[in-house]
């Protein structure tokens, strides 16, 4: 393994920051959701890199669980976005300024 472990960590930090900026800057609910996926993936990369660094598999198992939870989250989140679109005719998060449907 010639690549220092810190390179993976810094890369995943940059990806996480891109995802953060996406959540903060974009207005389309689908784009915000994609940015959250990017953040989750960046954290998965961190987990796998630490698993390699510590020579054990707990990090990989945790990344696996996080993928499963992300899949469940995507299903529910997209259903919420679809029902929000049905209600308001838009997926712009600024239009969803009232909690009650």
């Amino acid at each position: 393994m010639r690549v220092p472990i810190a390179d993976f960590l810094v890369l995943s930090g940059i990806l996480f920051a891109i995802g953060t900026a996406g959540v903060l800057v974009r207005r389309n609910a689908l784009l915000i959701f994609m940015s959250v996926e990017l953040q989750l993936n960046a954290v998965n990369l961190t987990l796998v890199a630490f698993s390699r660094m510590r020579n054990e598999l707990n990090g990989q198992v945790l990344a696996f669980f996080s993928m499963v939870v992300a899949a469940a989250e995507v299903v529910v989140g997209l259903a919420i976005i679809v029902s929000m679109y049905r209600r308001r005719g838009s997926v712009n998060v600024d239009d969803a300024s009232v909690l009650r449907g």
Partner: protein
Amino acid sequence: MAELIVFWVFAPLAVASGIAMLLQRNAVYSALFLVVNFFALAVFFLMLGAEFLFAVQIIVYAGAIMVLFLFVIMLLGVDREERLVEPIRWQRPLGIFLGVGITAEIFAAVRAGVGFAAKAPGGFALVNQGGNAQAIAKVLFTDYFLPFEITSILLIVAAVAAMVLAHRRRGAVSGPPPAGPARPQPDREAEVAG
């Protein structure tokens, strides 16, 4: 040496596709850039000795999740460009500033915690003995057996929740509502009248 080349090819690719996703105005292109990003991350998983997660990443993320995303984008017909008027004036510069700030913070944390030169120790082949999937299965079905079972409950709950949320009530108008302010709901009108 080969590892260094692979890393320095795919790391800029991952960052560039992430930034492209962020800047792209069309949601479909954003989703496709995100697929590129997921593939690049899968390559990193392979480099780090996580062959099982490499396969899962491509099948679940690049396959299932992104297809679901594209499906919803096409279903809603929101592949038109979003409007760029910012209701909060300073939100965009502040968002970019916070993104840069968190990058700097992570740089500092990695430098203090791991060090930029720390190489991974050898002997990972011993951990992965008999294959990465088998080794993960051994950990998953012993130490993490209860969380694994709870995961199955989570997936069932998510599937039921998606059906409940996306279910169209009988008598509802078919097709998306016209753009603009929300229509008054018939049942709420009845509520107010009664």
